[in-house]
């Protein structure tokens, strides 16, 4: 009974933290990018101001849109929120642990993507169509890479839920392994594509020049745009949580052990900070790729994930 209550509180805390911290993360990334380039940059709480501004603006619906115009932002926001709730952040063993199967996560990503793409095709103008076509192209290789990388994790952890993988990696002494190194490289490539960062998409400002994410939400305004922007921030936090949970599962708290929570929270903050710094420094050191280089980039990461699986088989002492 006490364990259930503690898990419930942990789950609620997790929800509160991720919903509150997502814009802060985006702001931090922008701030560190600016510092690295020698500028002062916008304040760290700028995304909160953006969201508040969108909340207070009126919502315009284009005349050529259909009745489902409002459905797509809500669907995308819900799918990403569900995924963010399922991925553990500072503790494992929350109430949603059994639901957090990795393939369910992949499915929720696909749902969010489908909703965004259909939102882009709503008004029937060229920007949305171009963005939608490119997003579908990137998603094809990203999903294949993600599945192949997942195989490696499932084989090592003997379980397919993110929670289970985190617990297994934290308790087993896997050590540094070539397979996990390749899997990390592949997962980072997919994460960069899914969150729409350099080198696959240009996340700065609201320019639709890169014609991927911004082009699809071009026609949205007011609270619908709020939902899309918030979903993008949640997506960044969600992917950082995922990478942190799988590859840096040290000192994660247990949901039914209150005394481990402070350490878990501290480690979560440190992990996120580390990843924010690495992401910012990486973003300022490369340029955005040409569109048709991205499938090659993702295809190479899929093949790296495949290699991770192969080396796992070699190391596990299997005969022919």
């Amino acid at each position, binding site marked *: 009974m006490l364990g259930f209550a503690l898990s419930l509180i942990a789950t609620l805390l997790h929800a509160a933290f991720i919903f509150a911290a997502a814009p802060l993360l985006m702001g931090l990334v922008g701030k560190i990018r600016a510092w690295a380039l020698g500028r002062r940059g916008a304040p760290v709480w700028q995304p909160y101001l953006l969201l508040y501004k969108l909340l207070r603006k009126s919502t315009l619906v284009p005349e050529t849109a259909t009745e489902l115009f409002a459905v797509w932002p809500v669907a995308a926001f819900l799918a990403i929120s569900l995924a963010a709730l399922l991925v553990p952040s500072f503790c494992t063993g929350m109430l949603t642990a059994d639901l957090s199967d990795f393939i369910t996560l992949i499915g929720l990503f696909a749902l969010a993507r489908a909703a965004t793409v259909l939102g882009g095709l709503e008004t029937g103008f060229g920007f949305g169509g171009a963005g939608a076509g490119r997003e579908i192209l990137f998603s094809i290789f990203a999903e294949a890479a993600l*599945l192949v990388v997942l195989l490696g994790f499932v084989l090592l952890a003997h379980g397919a839920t993110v929670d289970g993988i985190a617990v297994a990696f934290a308790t087993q002494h896997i050590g540094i392994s070539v397979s996990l190194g390749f899997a990390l490289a592949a997962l980072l490539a997919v994460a960069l594509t899914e969150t729409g960062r350099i080198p696959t998409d240009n996340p700065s400002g609201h320019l639709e020049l890169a014609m991927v994410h911004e082009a699809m939400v071009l026609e949205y305004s007011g609270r619908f745009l709020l939902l899309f922007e918030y979903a993008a921030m949640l997506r960044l936090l969600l992917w950082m949580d995922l990478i942190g949970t799988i590859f840096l599962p040290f000192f994660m708290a247990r949901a039914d052990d209150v005394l481990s929570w402070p350490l878990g929270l501290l480690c979560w903050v440190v992990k996120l900070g580390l990843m924010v710094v690495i992401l910012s420094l990486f973003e300022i050191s490369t340029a955005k790729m040409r569109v048709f280089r991205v499938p090659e980039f993702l295809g190479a990461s899929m093949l790296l994930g495949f290699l991770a699986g192969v080396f796992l088989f070699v190391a596990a002492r299997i*005969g022919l």
Partner: protein
Amino acid sequence: MVGLPGQGMHLQLDALSLLFLGLLAPQIVASAVAGMRGSVTFWAFVLGMVLALAAADAFTLIFGFELMSAASWLLVLRGDARPATFYVTMAVFSGACLIPAVFLPASSVAFLLILLGAGAKAGLAPLHSWLPKAHPAPPAGVSALMSGGMVKVALYVLIRYAFIILAPAQQPWWGVVLIVAGLGSVLIGALRAMLELELKTVLACSTVEHVGLIAVGLGVALRAKAMGDPILAGLALQAALLCAVAHGLFKPLLFLGAGEVKHAVGTSSLNWLGGLMRGMPRLGGLMLLGAAGMAALPLGPGFAPEFLLLHAVIGAAATGGILARIGFTASLALLGLGAALALGAAVRLIGIGFLGRPRTLQAAAAEDIGRGPLFAMGLLAVLMLPVALLPGLVLQLLTPVVMELAPAAQTPPLAYVPVPLLLLGFLVLAAAGFVLQRWGVRGTRAAPSWNGGFGAPPPWLPFGDPLTQPSATGFAEPVARAIGQGLLTRDMADPAEEWVVAPLLRVHLKGVRLAERIRRATIRERLAFVFVALVLFLLALGLGEGG
């Protein structure tokens, strides 16, 4: 009594037959209500399918199968004469493989013949290129039943023989052949569904992809059963059967909708549709449900089968020799590619066809569907709800079938439960709604599209210039450049046409020429033939006696 002299026909229903009959029943009702009930050939088609499913002896099975083929060929011929010849060739080939196979004892040769015959009829690669040509030809009700029902009957024949009748001689490599054929179907079907322009052809290519998924599941189960792995066999069988159930619901719905689109707009080419959601909201909503199933989106009917199948392949990659493991890892990558391509095809179908602006005046003037088709599609949609929201329950209903096919199989509970996810979603929605109501600005305002500042279109183009809209070809162009150029032939045709059909046509032509040569033989040549035959017979007799 009809049937073989002295034996008659035997009918019997076991768990497998009941499942497939139950699969077929809503489709038959829907097609009949949607306008096919007056056609005698349609009912002959239905009779053939039911006979094949309820058969207890091989004669009834083959009789029903061929009746089904013949009736559907007549319906295809009436719809469009061009694919009819190709279709009947494949039907004859399929029959020619099946008929000897049912008389052979249990062996690998029998399995291969059954695989060729039933696989050709189901549209398994590399014998799949007839399906996207023949399925779009007849009226929508028949297309629905062909894609949703006839391929299921072919798969039923395959399942019954591979798992039950030929079980004493089973080998692990049988499953591997099925898996390879299935992966080919998935890749080519999903890619072509992404690139084709006609709505019905897109749906037919998606059928090829789903048949491939079912075949991969069956292959993993067959291999696991031959190697004595009960958990994997149960998991893979669950995946294959649930995929068949789900496909049998959303594919007929989509086909009926495509028929209605053609009826209302006059064309079913995606490049000439657009904005149909405004004029046909009921059809649009139903097509959206069907497309959610086709794309295997979570909280939709198609996700649970995909979930189970991916877990089955991951489980298969966790055991076995290194070559098998590498193969299963590669098949996992290919399944991921196929799933994402299917998502793209479904999104293209809804986004280009139903959203956006009308590309022709007919598309703008389309009227919503009548009561008959609405009832038919609504029935299928209502039946999709339990598969989408309570897949665990549906799997429990499927357990007797799984036990019949693999008696030692174990069926673990499903790890994907949509109802808690839905509850969580409602909670988040409630919270977000509260925030937006309390602090946000209410209501919306209509305004012209931003479109980067291009402004309103001129008055003589009421919906804007159709050329400024993304076309179906344009949407698929990045994928065509990245993948299509590698996998398809130079003019974006199916590779099976070049590598399977064209050589077979050449062989056929040579055979026809030889037959013509024999027919025109002179009297001297015919005498020579009889003489040579006599000499050979005497030689065989002499050698046989001497040895």
